[in-house]
């Protein structure tokens, strides 16, 4: 019952011609130069991800009460340092300042349990946009805890945005050399 149509016949013929041309065009190894020796090997490789994520990236202050955010290493590569892009808006009146402190455990009532927090960066004066860097190593999945401490805020709101940034390779763990 199957009868090839003219179109099918032409298509089959065209396919055969293309295949024949293809076989002819693929050169055998060193066909013109003589014999060629070839050896092959291989293996799979995968790359990691790097980055830190803040639980809170925007804070609004109407008083000098500190606020906190948790920064976690959400990548698959350990970090040797992290940067924070910080932007302060200036209220119409007053010129508040902000200081950032880091603690290895969550802050409790404004204090770093077991000691004092570590200041990162200098005192920032509103308005400003700047980048400050922490040299705290962060293992994969671990966190560090930041506290933003303002001064000079009276009723009028000041906004602080804080965005973690991780740049490779400088802020990643030390390079690993594998011999296998």
């Amino acid at each position: 019952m199957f009868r090839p149509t003219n179109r099918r016949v032409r298509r089959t013929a065209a396919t055969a011609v293309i295949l024949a041309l293809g076989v002819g065009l693929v050169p055998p190894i060193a066909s013109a130069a003589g014999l060629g020796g070839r050896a092959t090997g291989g293996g799979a490789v995968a790359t990691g991800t790097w980055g830190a994520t803040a639980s809170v990236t925007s804070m609004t202050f109407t008083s000098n009460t500190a606020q906190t955010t948790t920064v976690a290493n959400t990548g698959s590569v350990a970090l040797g340092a992290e940067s924070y892009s910080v932007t302060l808006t200036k209220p119409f009146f007053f010129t508040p300042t902000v200081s950032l402190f880091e603690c290895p455990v969550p802050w409790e009532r404004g204090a770093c349990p077991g000691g004092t927090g570590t200041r990162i960066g200098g005192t920032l004066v509103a308005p400003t946009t700047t980048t400050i860097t922490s040299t705290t190593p962060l293992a994969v999945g671990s966190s560090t805890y930041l506290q933003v401490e303002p001064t000079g805020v009276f009723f009028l709101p000041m906004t602080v945005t804080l965005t973690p940034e991780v740049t490779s390779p400088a802020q990643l763990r030390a390079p690993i050399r594998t011999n296998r």
Partner: protein
Amino acid sequence: MTTHRHTSKKERSHGKLVVAGLLTTSAALMATAGVYAGLSATATGAESVSSGSLNLTLSPDVGVGFSNFTGVMAPGDTDNVYVNLNNTGSLASAAGMTLAVAGNPVNALTSGSVPGEGLTISATQCSVAWTLSTGNCSGTTKTILASTTVSSLSAPVALSNIPALVAATGQVAHVQVSLGLAATETSVNGVAPAATVQGLSTTLAYTFTEQQRTGVATNQ
């Protein structure tokens, strides 16, 4: 019935004549052919010849050789494997060798789609077997491929400093192949840039190719 018998005898007699004629003609033709065969002459000689082979083999020098890297690579990391390239054929090879590397799947690690980023490969030859624990060569080393992006190795690239890498039959080259990752990227709040080499995987296929020595003209 008698008439029939008489007719058959006549036909038989004619048949005999025909057969005799054919035999005579055949004999005449054969005799003529024999005259021509007698005029030809043949001379023969023999020479045996065998072809050589050109075989390049790849095997681990120390360690596992080419195989899967089970960790995740970060920029600046180096993954070294150690392989032997051996000319096991009966023919010497020409000086020089090429290396091509292909990735499957093709992505930013191997395509060069992110400028300045991707996997890199370098290769160093040691005069003796490498020391796996340290990755050092106790003999002399030659850099045969400086750090090169895999995207630049999609077409065969000539290895340098290897005039006699495996030129002679049975000669072995101890080669350290170093895989690296070049990437300068900033992740913002845990998010990688749109064009990134982060979180990718591929399988690399290395192809080393040598050519036979120049043809030799012999007069004997």
